[in-house]
């Protein structure tokens, strides 16, 4: 399951929300990953060109909470994909999401993705 990064004025940081994974650098996943969405999530991630990054937004994307133990929910996006940035909160405030996105961009720019 892929969601676009929310429109909290992210555009002023040079970040656009894209409709197709083929044009995206960052995959923002909000909400819990269920069994049904797992394969689609993998497919969408597979369609993204390298280099690509993943942000888990919200407590359910980060850990599956409060649905931990459910028969249909994975305990976080990182059980399915490699995650670069985690933004907690239920839901996270817009400021927290922006902070997470900018943090990721900082990480990318400083070359810390060399080991990818």
């Amino acid at each position, binding site marked *: 399951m892929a969601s676009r990064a929310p429109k909290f004025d992210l555009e002023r940081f040079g970040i656009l929300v894209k409709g197709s994974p083929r044009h995206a650098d960052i995959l923002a996943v909000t909400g819990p990953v*269920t*069994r*049904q969405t797992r394969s689609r999530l993998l497919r969408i991630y597979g369609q993204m060109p390298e280099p690509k990054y993943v942000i888990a937004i919200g407590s359910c994307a980060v850990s599956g909470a409060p649905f931990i*133990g*459910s*028969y*249909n929910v994975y305990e976080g996006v990182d059980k399915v994909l490699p995650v670069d940035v985690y933004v907690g909160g239920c839901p996270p405030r817009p400021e927290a999401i922006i902070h997470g996105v900018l943090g990721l961009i900082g990480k990318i720019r400083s070359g810390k993705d060399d080991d990818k």
Partner: protein
Amino acid sequence: MMISSLIKRILGKDAQEILSPREGRLFIRISREKLRESVKRLAELEGFSHLSTITGVDTGSEIELIYHLSHRDALVSLRVFVSKEAAAVPTIVDLIPGASLYEREVHDLFGVRFDGNTDLSPLLLPDDWPEDIHPLRQEWSLERINERMREK
């Protein structure tokens, strides 16, 4: 309460037990054989608007099905019991087409068959879900389901 006496009159002896825990709520037990007839009579009442949903409950020995029918004066909940081994009731989608998704949902979660409903395909459960696991049945605890899914 007027609606209570009206419904007693309409359902007659088919109503095996009538409870009214508070104003605006009626719980009526009926037999499986009388389900369709009772739903039909209630749906024809002036003031009836819709079926809100169908609730399934695993009582341990049986599956209880509760049909929540919304009348202007009260929410009328009709309950029917079926055995877990032969969990089937006749469909009501021809009487109330809006029941379609609710029957599918109960079928998914409890394994109840709704005879006459030609589309009981999965509504909520994933495509690769094992057919024999009905998550809301008591014998399927969360631990047991998760363990079984790990084996896949």
